[in-house]
């Protein structure tokens, strides 16, 4: 594992990785479109994905706001936007998997065990750690599931 693609709405993960995982080649993406372009151009060995994208413009989010509002929130667009922001990391991962990229994905989030199991059922090689701890992340990236 030497090439890490970081997907987030800010710069905190990428900055962390460049300083504390300095032996890895780190590329950053801020949306699904960015991530797909980066994977097609350079490839990667693993993904480090932020779950919540509350700083990205709604137009950059994966997921149709109106359709989500109609399908899940009785037309409430505000709740639909919160949902798309809160789940953006997994929605981006779904897009990448649909495009054929099956590389390991790591979230920094306390997923309940059933939720993580469900993510693995849907998206294959998915792992999660609870903190931005370099040693733990290195083990998770190197050790797979």
């Amino acid at each position, binding site marked *: 594992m030497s090439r890490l693609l970081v997907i987030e709405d800010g710069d905190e993960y990428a900055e962390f990785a460049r*300083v504390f995982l300095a032996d890895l080649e780190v590329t950053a993406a801020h949306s699904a479109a960015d991530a797909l372009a980066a994977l097609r151009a350079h490839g990667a060995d693993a993904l480090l994905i932020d779950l*919540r994208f509350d700083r990205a413009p709604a137009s950059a989010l994966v997921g149709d706001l109106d359709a989500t509002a109609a399908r899940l929130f009785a037309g409430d667009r505000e709740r639909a936007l919160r949902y798309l922001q809160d789940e953006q990391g997994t929605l981006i991962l779904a897009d990448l998997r649909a495009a054929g990229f099956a590389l390991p994905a790591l979230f920094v989030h306390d997923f309940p065990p059933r939720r993580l199991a469900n993510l693995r059922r849907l998206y294959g090689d998915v792992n999660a750690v609870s903190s931005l701890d370099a040693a733990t992340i290195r083990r998770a990236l190197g050790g797979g599931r």
Partner: protein
Amino acid sequence: MSRRELSLLVHDVGKYVARTARNLPPEPTREMIDMLVRDLYELRPGQRASHVFALAAAIAGAPALDHVRAMFEEIDALESEVRAGAPAAVKRAAAIARDIELRLRALAVES
């Protein structure tokens, strides 16, 4: 406090306030200290971590977070020394930041 609100506290504050603190070696570089300064005092543009926490905690409305607020006050009191890279202040602020993350995560698990 809802699970979502707790999750926001952990995500927006806990994880990022401890981002550098969790990984500091015994003798951190200036780059690492600058990252710690951003985590503690510039977490969001124009907002120190204690302010982001206060906003999130107000929304969450949890009295159990008072002890975390006091920990942030101690971090804020160390600001000038941390910015100057004073080793004892950097070490103390990092220890508090790690403890804040642990306490917020514990609250989220308990809910």
